[in-house]
């Protein structure tokens, strides 16, 4: 056991790592925003008075939550072209991440909505607000606040899950690490760098969400 770590050998490949990191950040930011929006709309759909809408939302959520992410990804990238929908690897990866986060966050957000006291709906209704207005203005923000920690964790899981989209050759961080180790034969070092960068990204995400929390939830107690 005398393995000499050689990080200097990775220096020529820094541009590859940087490009991969950038793609990972792109995928993460857009899929987080898109996924949370989709999740919120589905959570609203699940409490709709329209039974058909309610059922379609449940269907979507259950299918996504009960199938592997990589299968969802392959379905979008390799399956959809059969239906004439052709997406680039980047687009397919992004779409898969949005759809995945959408389903999980819908279920988390719904828990927050279910926990809203009935009196909040009634107060809004007696003030003459429509159901939709009550949802968006009264119910939603406290619902986010209730489930915020779970929501943050889910977003980070999806960020880490972005490593999987390297399987359809999206050139993100894991793809870069693969590429570098195949050229430099410094596998240990390459993946160590990748792991460290993912760790830092996760910490950075938590910090960002903590900052958002301070601005978004100003009420002292809930």
């Amino acid at each position: 056991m005398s393995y000499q770590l050689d990080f200097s050998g990775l220096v020529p490949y820094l541009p590859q790592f940087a490009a991969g990191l950038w793609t990972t950040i792109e995928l993460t930011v857009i899929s987080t925003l898109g996924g949370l929006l989709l999740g919120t709309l589905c959570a609203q759909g699940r409490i709709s008075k329209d039974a058909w809408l309610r059922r379609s939302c449940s269907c979507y959520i259950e299918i996504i939550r009960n199938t592997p992410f990589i299968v969802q990804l392959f379905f979008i990238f390799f399956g959809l072209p059969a239906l004439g929908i052709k997406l680039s690897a980047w687009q397919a990866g992004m779409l898969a991440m949005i759809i995945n986060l959408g389903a999980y966050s819908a279920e988390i957000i719904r828990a927050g909505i279910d926990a809203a006291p009935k009196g909040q709906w009634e107060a809004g209704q007696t003030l003459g607000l429509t159901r939709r207005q009550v949802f968006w203005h009264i119910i939603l923000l406290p619902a986010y606040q209730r489930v915020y920690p779970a929501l943050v964790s889910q977003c980070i899981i999806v960020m880490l899950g972005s490593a999987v989209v390297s399987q359809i050759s999206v050139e993100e961080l894991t793809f870069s690490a693969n590429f570098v180790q195949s050229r430099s034969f410094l596998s240990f070092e390459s993946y160590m760098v990748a792991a460290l960068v993912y760790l830092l990204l996760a910490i950075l995400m938590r910090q960002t969400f903590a900052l958002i929390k301070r601005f978004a939830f100003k009420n002292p107690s809930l």
Partner: protein
Amino acid sequence: MSLVSLDQVHKYYGENHVLKGVDLKVEAGEVVSIIGRSGSGKSTLLRCMNGLEEYQKGAVIVDNQSVENDDYKLRLLSRSVGMVFQNFNLFPHMTVGENVMLATKLVMKKSSADSEILAKELLEKVGLADKFSAYPGNLSGGQQQRVAIARSLAMSPKVLLCDEITSALDPELVGEVLKVLEKLKQEGMTLILVTHEMNFARDVGDRVVFMNQGRVWETGQSDEVFSNPQTEELQSFLAAVR
């Protein structure tokens, strides 16, 4: 035409017959207290007046509008009927001012400036002008309930329904809320309250409605009802709460 008129209202929760043909008329400017044991249907009756509860038979007419299970009609009705709840139901993520202004902006489509003027006026009226930017979580129960009253007044309702609005308060905070109600009565507001505050019902209320077993068991002018209850049930109820 009475401001509020209930005609033979029946309400069932499944098999459970909760309201068994309730007749009640309330004129504009009246203060009517609904009293009775828990489970007698008094809250349910109140909630039938603004559509929070459906009823199965009879008619409820408020401000010349029939109360029906129709979202659009109920939204129109909400401009005539305000409601204050036992648990305040303030919106925790909004400041006091935002709570009061929400409906004026979203429903009445007033500008932010006009809404703010109105909100400050109403908070002044309930004695909380200095709490405009506070969050409900930082207020006492009595203060929260006064904000809730200001919030429902923002829609300038013709009648205010009060559902046990002092029941969740510490005893020393009840007075400040009742004072606001007295002030509203002096200004001519119609109040219908489900209440356990017998002193308030007697001293401030015009009329008392005693509910028992889903019916209006006894009703009359406040002083008469309290000094000379006719039915055995009301006599025993008053003896129990005094």
